[in-house]
């Protein structure tokens, strides 16, 4: 069984990839192949074909399919959190920023073809990394990554705390089966976050 391994991923190792490089083509190829037929059935040959390079070239950059998966997860988390932070930066208040960040991330996760395929058909490859001890690591990481959206109103640790809480809300309502509320719908998300989430994330005395 192929599983994602987030152990060795981290913001420090990631950043965005320069387009056209072998790394960028390999991660893009993985996303395409996984969306089409899943992670278990994707081979290095498939990735090489999709990336338009040889098997040997891929092996010069990555020692295994798992290494490509690791980098892709890293790049995708960075991409989704960066877009979410950007959505928050233009907002006039903390409440608006919380809603904008959450809505952007919910939509990116919901519309993510590769992620959707894995959640529907190979959940074992992904959910193990969203819960229990693995979940801790991802929540803290995403929390830190979302923090810059809130530092205009909150001190750094509070901003990261807010980011982690949003990551929890999205994990439960967007990534787990049978969501009861559609947080990709703007009016629904705005009302939900304003009522239940925003009041818990502001600055309080004491």
């Amino acid at each position: 069984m192929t599983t994602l391994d987030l152990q060795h991923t981290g913001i420090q190792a990631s950043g965005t990839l320069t387009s056209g490089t072998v790394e960028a083509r390999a991660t893009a190829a993985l996303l395409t192949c996984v969306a089409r037929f899943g992670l278990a059935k994707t081979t290095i040959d498939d990735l090489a074909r999709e990336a338009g390079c040889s098997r040997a070239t891929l092996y010069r950059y990555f020692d295994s399919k798992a290494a490509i998966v690791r980098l892709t997860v890293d790049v995708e988390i960075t991409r989704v959190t960066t877009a979410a932070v950007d959505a928050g930066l233009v907002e006039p208040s903390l409440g608006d920023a919380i809603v904008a960040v959450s809505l952007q991330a919910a939509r990116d996760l919901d519309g993510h073809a590769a992620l959707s395929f894995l959640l529907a058909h190979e959940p074992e490859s992904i959910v193990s990394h969203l819960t229990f001890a693995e979940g801790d690591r991802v929540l803290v990481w995403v929390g830190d990554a979302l923090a810059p959206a809130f530092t205009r109103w909150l001190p750094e640790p509070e901003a990261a705390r807010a980011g982690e809480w949003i990551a929890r809300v999205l994990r439960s309502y967007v990534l787990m089966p049978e969501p009861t509320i559609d947080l990709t719908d703007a009016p629904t998300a705005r009302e939900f976050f304003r009522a239940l989430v925003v009041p818990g994330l502001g600055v309080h005395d004491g």
Partner: protein
Amino acid sequence: MFRGTYSCIARLGLAKTTMDDAARAAGVSRATVYRQFPGGRDELLRETVGWEMTRFFAHLGEELGHASDFAEFLERAIPLARDELVHHDVLQKVLETEPDRLIPLITVEQHRLIEYIAAYFLPMLERDQERGVVRTDADLPRAAEYVARMALSLVASPGRHDLDDPVEVHRLVRRELLGGLLVPARQ
């Protein structure tokens, strides 16, 4: 049936537990097990995981007993649930040996647990609303589900939060969890 299957999982793990083992442990025939679980082994294992998850929280509720209000209940419930989860021998063993089998089952069964916990929370929220502790305009069924989801999230993965620290738990409960629900004067 669930008790028997659970004892097999504890002994053999998920992959090695068969319908025959479960039938023997429960003291029923193979045919009976297949009649009860037409989906076979996968269905039996999934339902058993769901049964144990509900049983775990039902037991927790009994242990916690009376609380003066919902916030106080959560302040005691969350650290206790975390502690019992960490010391749940069967869960920890299977998480260690067969995480890729167990976690999808837990995830699939999670919605049932959320419903169960939300139904448990709802009367407490209603009582607090009647007493003026919870805002009159709060949508309580939705709030009960939100608190159930987020409390479960904290118990399974505390992230940066130290659930052994009463000050931290107090803050999590009064702000993150119930900040939108409690009447401000009571926060």
